[in-house]
């Protein structure tokens, strides 16, 4: 899959939701803990060598599971391979909880669900669709089921169909 690293590098320089130096272990067996500057920007987790300006790598945080790992660490794994874990060590339980909370809310999918929820609730209370004011009430991403076509130019909302 081709992508322009520079797009991600530029993103990694944007203001972060959270940033800290953490211990990090890759998913491979026998990987050792390394100190990394870890930075959460939108739905990406970047990790840098502590003395470098460009990130070593990035993790897209969609369809991921964030779990606490004793004593004060957490892991990130992905739905297609749940045993493959990126592990992080925090300096305190508090820091750990802060990261877990932030990472769980970091996905675009989480925001989409939140938006649909609020839209639905507002409609129940006010009888009005709050997205109409934005002119985006017909967009597929904001529909209740999330899988329905909402405009003639749009497919059923997943690859492979028009």
């Amino acid at each position, binding site marked *: *899959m081709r992508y322009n690293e520079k797009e991600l590098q530029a993103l990694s320089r944007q203001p972060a939701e959270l940033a800290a130096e953490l211990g990090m272990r890759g998913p491979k067996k026998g990987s050792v803990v390394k100190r990394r500057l870890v930075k959460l920007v939108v739905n990406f987790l970047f990790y840098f060598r502590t003395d470098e300006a460009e990130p070593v790598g990035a993790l897209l945080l969609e369809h991921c599971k964030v779990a606490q790992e004793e004593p004060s660490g957490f892991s990130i794994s992905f739905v297609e391979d749940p045993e493959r874990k990126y592990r992080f060590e925090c300096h305190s339980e508090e820091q750990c909880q802060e990261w877990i909370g932030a990472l769980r809310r970091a996905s675009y999918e989480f925001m989409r669900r939140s938006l649909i929820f609020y839209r639905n609730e507002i409609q129940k209370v006010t009888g009005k669709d*709050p997205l109409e004011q934005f002119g985006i009430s017909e*967009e597929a991403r904001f529909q209740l089921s999330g899988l329905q076509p909402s*405009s003639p130019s749009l497919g059923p909302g997943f690859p492979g169909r028009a």
Partner: protein
Amino acid sequence: METLRASGHTAILTEAMKLNERSVAHYALSDSPADHVGFLRTWGGPGTPPTPSGTGRRCWFVLKGNLLFSFESREGRAPLSLVVLEGCTVELAEAPVPEEFAFAIRFDAPGVRPHLLAADGPAAQEAWVKALSRASFGYMRLVVRELESQLRDARQSLALHRRSSWKAVTSRCKPQAPDRWSPGLENGHTLSRDCSPTGLVEEGGSRPAGRGLAEWELQGPANLLLGRGQSPVSPETSCFSTLHDWYGQEIMELRRAWLQRAQGSRPEREGQDRP
């Protein structure tokens, strides 16, 4: 893993940035909703000249959130490319061939090459530009925060409205038990069993009308805001039946409007009414 990368005329050996590509591809192919899909012509991809020339390569594009994927075809099992739609603007572009419905994704950061794409017609071009312009995480976050605050306001004003209406109604009846209703909507309490139709009121006040929406109630958005089962009516009042009729009517109004809207976008779900 090291890659040989050309920078100007000098080749520099650098370590390629890592990305969890397998997970990214899995997300691209998953059934999470796509925000826009369609065929677009593209330049600069594999097998095409690096600068715009000719009609470009036709690929199937899928926009999910702030990620734009391309596939060789609609049935493609692996994404060809990924564009991360952050820190960019999308605008109509001069096509290499005139009137080719082209648009460009330009990045604010210096040195990041723009992407040139072309749709099949003006409607598709407009739809893509609109969709891509609103694809950023920041835009979504703004909308969510705005709705969050709107919901808070709406519930507060509804609570105040009900309180004053309730007081107006109770003043016509004999004074009863002290006002048990707390405007703190976190403390939901359901109606007692002898009130019918309990289901109707419960539904209007709390749960979304049961269309498989339980999943996000577990996953956080419900926790972000207010609890479930809000019901400002206390069963203790002797004027309860009056209140209930009034309350029930309002709920039916809201529910009707909501159902209309819901049925408008999901015609196959008619008849799934609750009593």
